[in-house]
């Protein structure tokens, strides 16, 4: 095992997959000479050269659709979108083209592409550099949506995403980039579509992902002192999500809180809550509570009040503990 920062775990995943498969290449703004605006491609330009680490004009639509065309001709592009907010400039590429190409063309073409992007607050960068838009993509049939919360997870999940024959929206979190964690020296992957129970517990199930996993774990530590036991499930793959793990946990705890940094309304917590009420309502002993950002653009000066944290998780847990059917 070795310690590594989240951002360099991303780099290692890309580097190893580029070594393993010559069809894998990286494309995006400032990924080459500048080594990635957050440093995710440090050293890759020197190692693989400009033919495989491709700096582009500032043109998200152009280079994402370009990568889609290349993917349908047998390559395996990794596209870096500098901030998740900028992915809105290439929604045609992702939603109309990439998500539909194989299905719409009757399985003639595959589009094995990974579109990586960091989401979330943490930099006080304001409304256009802080958004969490995973639910948009989870709502589009044909895409997989992955969110990683630790260096170990980000490496294993990114490698699986690159090897996957489906298009994957791979969401990182800016506040996690500097996080250190332990990973094996040898090659490893983490399967897509499987959740990870980050902490076992018996009173309330928290279904979460990305940065909010850590906030939920903090909440779990604090609530343990009050005698409340949280089970923290890191979904890791938002679409398709791991119903079995979530439902089994609720079968044990009978209470559910969902937590994401994205605004609460229409977030992935809403889908999970709806699925739970449709399929295992009788397992619930209390109303479901959802944690998310307020329904307003991310605030520049009020970011620390805007972004949800451990206190919000604790409050939601207390609310569901106070109620019962």
């Amino acid at each position, binding site marked *: 095992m070795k310690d590594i920062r989240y951002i360099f775990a991303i780099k290692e995943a890309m580097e190893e997959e580029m070594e393993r498969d010559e069809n894998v*290449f990286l494309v995006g703004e400032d990924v080459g000479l500048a080594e990635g605006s957050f440093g995710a491609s440090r050293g890759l330009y020197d190692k693989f050269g400009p*033919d495989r680490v491709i700096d*582009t*004009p500032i*043109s998200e*639509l*152009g*280079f*994402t*659709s*370009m*990568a*889609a*065309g*290349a*993917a*349908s*001709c*047998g*390559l395996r592009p990794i596209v870096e979108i500098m901030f998740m907010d900028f992915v809105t400039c290439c929604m*045609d*590429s992702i939603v*109309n*083209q990439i998500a539909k*190409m*194989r*299905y*719409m*063309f*009757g*399985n*003639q*073409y*595959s589009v094995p592409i990974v579109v990586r992007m960091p989401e979330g607050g943490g930099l006080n960068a304001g409304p256009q550099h802080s958004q969490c838009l995973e639910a948009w993509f989870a709502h589009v*049939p*044909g895409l*997989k949506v992955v969110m990683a919360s630790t260096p170990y997870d980000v490496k294993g999940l990114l490698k699986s995403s690159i090897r996957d*024959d*489906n298009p994957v929206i791979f969401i990182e979190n800016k506040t996690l980039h500097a996080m250190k964690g332990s990973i094996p020296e040898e090659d490893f992957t983490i399967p897509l579509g499987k959740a990870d129970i980050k902490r076992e517990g018996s009173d309330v199930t928290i279904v979460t992902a990305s940065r909010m996993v850590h906030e939920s774990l903090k909440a779990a530590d604090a609530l343990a002192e009050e005698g409340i036991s949280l089970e923290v499930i890191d979904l890791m793959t938002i679409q*398709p999500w791991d119903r079995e793990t979530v439902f089994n946990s609720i079968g044990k705890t009978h209470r559910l809180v969902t937590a994401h940094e994205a605004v609460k309304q229409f977030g992935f917590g809403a889908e999970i809550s709806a699925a739970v009420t449709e399929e295992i309502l009788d397992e619930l002993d209390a109303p479901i509570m959802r944690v998310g950002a307020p329904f307003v653009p991310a605030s520049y000066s009020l970011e620390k009040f805007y972004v949800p944290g451990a206190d919000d998780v604790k409050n939601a847990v207390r609310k569901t503990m106070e109620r019962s059917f």
Partner: protein
Amino acid sequence: MSKPGRKKLIEFYTRMVRIRKTEEKLMEVFSNGEILGFLHVSIGQEAAPVGICAHLSDLDYIATTHRGHGHAIAKGIDLKYAMAELFGKKEGFCMGRSGSMHLADKKHGIMGANGIVGGGIPIATGAAFAARYKKTDQVAVATFGEGATGEGAFHEALNFAAIKKLPIVYVCENNGWAEFSPQSIHMPIKDVISRATAYNMPAVQVSNDVLEIYEAAGKAIDHARAGKGPTLLEVKCDRWHGHYVGDAQKYRGKDAVEKAMGKDCLLNFEVTLLTDKVLQKKDIEKIGAQVQAEIDEAVDFARECSFPDPSEMMDGLYI
């Protein structure tokens, strides 16, 4: 570039007839409800696909538009399975999932018509990128109308391809109408080729004449294959019909439509071939009858095919 010989000229003519008659047939079966959704025909614009695709092999790529039957036919698509697709049948190239607007045939390098105006331009650019990446001598062609040149996708793709000198030819069939609006409403310039200046890209403008297009496309494709980068080729043509079949074109006026229909690239080519004694009247009739028989056979085949079963709807969403 050598002039096309007799055999090639007859092949060009036959392909143009195949496109024209196929679309005439499509209008008929669309009108009687056998084809669903939207149908966009390219009648009057048959010269460009034929003149361009004459230089392409099955290994070369083309990404086309909602008005893309002509390109698919010129690139060699099998009419029977194309027709089955347009009829929504599961034997079609796309299992009845694409219809006219997203018709694709991987075997012939047809990367799909596209329901999003300009959507195929960067995708074809990606095919050219893949050819360069794999060090093959394949080229890609993106076709689109002048309306698509208002899209960011057009500019982003041309910029990238010019920087990287990718093996691609951008073919703009400028028929003067972007959906329901004339060029004067959406372009401050007369010629699409003016846009190439911004990308330091060679650009050529030709009339709606198959031989002129063939020659210009040949040079552009050779240029691309030789690793010298992209070209923007503009074909000035006319759209005979509305944006889609059923569009009454009230915005256009009867005189303008009649004027457009007075310019017929197929008839002009036919006259040239007759004048040059490449073909005789009886040859023209024979080609017409043969092509019509092919099309009728394709329609019969499509009618016999089956619709996909609703139980198959979820198949292949993920692999």
